[in-house]
């Protein structure tokens, strides 16, 4: 029985995160154990994994199964700061694979253009993110919604004042990066929009 175990990490960082002791960045680790399985199928599997990473905005992927272990780290997009997303069922922890994102990288200004061609809506303030006008209302925007410059995409509450945040761009929302009720900091990425 294949026992898939995967750990993944996204590039985004919620604010107020726990700081662990400083870790050094690790250079790309690509380690693959070739089994008796045909080389061609492994390449196909690898391509699938890379596609999985790109489509889900992952910067690292670490998978182990049936004696095979694949650990991939994606370059090109500089994540704002390191954070550990909750690990998904780490049944077997791979020995010695400690991968960390670089610390202390200057964040993009609001409206960052990243290598995947998407536009990022970032937070202009510090506060608490709310995806809807009230707990009973539908969210301002969802994945697939079209937004324009004046579209309200969310509320950020600071000192009991609710501020409407506008998209300030044109396009289709492809990703929502934060959860309602989550604390956000200045410049924190909130949404990814496909321009056009």
């Amino acid at each position, binding site marked *: 029985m294949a026992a898939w175990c995967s750990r993944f990490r996204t590039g985004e960082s919620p*604010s*107020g995160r726990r700081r662990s002791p400083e870790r050094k960045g690790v250079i790309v680790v690509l380690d693959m154990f070739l089994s008796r399985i045909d080389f061609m199928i492994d390449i196909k599997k690898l391509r699938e994994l890379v596609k999985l990473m790109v489509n889900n905005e992952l910067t690292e992927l670490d998978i182990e199964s049936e004696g095979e272990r694949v650990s991939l780290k994606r370059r090109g997009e500089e994540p704002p700061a390191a954070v550990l997303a909750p690990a998904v069922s780490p049944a077997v922890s791979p020995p010695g694979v400690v991968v960390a994102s670089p610390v202390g990288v200057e964040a993009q200004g609001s409206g960052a253009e990243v290598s995947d061609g998407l536009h990022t809506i970032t937070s202009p303030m*510090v506060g608490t993110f709310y995806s809807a006008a009230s707990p009973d209302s539908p969210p301002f925007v969802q994945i697939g919604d079209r937004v324009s410059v004046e579209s309200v995409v969310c509320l950020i509450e600071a000192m009991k004042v609710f501020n409407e945040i506008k998209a300030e761009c044109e396009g289709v929302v492809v990703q929502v990066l934060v959860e309602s009720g989550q604390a956000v900091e200045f410049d924190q990425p909130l949404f990814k929009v496909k321009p056009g």
Partner: protein
Amino acid sequence: MFSRILIANRGEIALRILRAARELDIETVAVYSTVDRGAAHVRQADHAICIGPAVASESYLNIPRIISAAEIANVDAIHPGYGFLAENAHFAEVCRSCNIEFIGPSIESMQLLGDKVSCKQLAIKHKVPISPGSKGKVETEEEAIKIAKQIGYPVIIKAAAGGGGRGMRVVHNYMALRSGYKAAMVEADACFGDSSVYVEKFIEHARHVEVQVLGDQHGRLVHLFERDCTMQRRHQKLIEESPCPVVSEEERDALCKSAVRLCKAANYHSAGTVEFLMDTQTHEFHLMEVNTRLQVEHPVTEMVTGIDIVKTQIRVAAGEKLAFTQRDVKIRGHAIETRINAEDPANGFAPSPGRIERFDPPGGPGVRVDTHCHGGYVVPPNYDSMIAKLIVHQPAREEAIATVRRALGEFRIEPIATTIPLHDRLMRNGQFLRGDVDIHFVERLLEK
């Protein structure tokens, strides 16, 4: 005791506060602007929140953003450090109204001592030595002339709303006063929006002597003796030392006691500094102002008294009593601090921000370095240029000076220009060694 505090500052003082909090087992929250993302205290804090872009008005001076960060991080208290919002009574008020303790004095005492006129009136009432001159604002030219005649020329006309060396005019005689008085009022109105001026005796050769006070919220307030900060350039301190090398025991005792009287009268608590000018000829003291906050040069006093001022600030803010009485406070030995700035003394003190490739601070007995810099650190151009404080403590002044010289020789900061060469020169200057200087000494020396 607090369980979590927010550090509303940056640079070396943010790291200083972080260290004190760590030793008290308090969690720390750093707030930072985008250019300070890699800063030492940001990396070391338990939580860090980016609050805005580099410009201070949208980050370190921005009250809503800082309070917002304090709320989402759920802190008990905020330490404002020095500069930025440290003496902003409105900020202190906002903190406390949001149930967040402001690590500093009460708003009332901050306002009372922070206003030069009310401070001077309180000083007169409690026999704290002040500048002879007008008791308050001078309303007419005739009044100014009358006062000048009484106290003797030269006199200085000061804007009541001014500070930090701005809005001042020295006049040496009656004619100069007549033309200067009106001009000073117009200037004051233009710069500070308040044309009020007052007239005081001007000291030709002055030393800057200040007294450190520390009080709790249970009525106990003590002094931690004095510091001499005469070595300045354009009202910016370069070198500070304790004790003052030219005052007698009696003068020291009287001065420090007067500072305590003044602060007690204002119901002051936490850390504060009462600044005086001393006439080098007569040893007469004139109250200048009270800084209702932690000072840059606090390490000098920490070294000679052995008291951790920042930890004590946090403790008294949390309601603890001072752990010592006035009798317990003693000065041992002599301490000197040199402020190292990212400026080029050979080039008109032009700022020299940029990447530090090599940062080798000195060490050894009696040496303390307070800095946020390290090899690879990029000094941003957006904030003040101080990058390190070198503090030395030895049993006597001569030894301390020798150690400063030794330490400056070891201190390598490359490739940016720093004021280390200037300090080296000052540490070898005969007049400084003899204690024969005044607040314009460095400027005169540099002019030659």
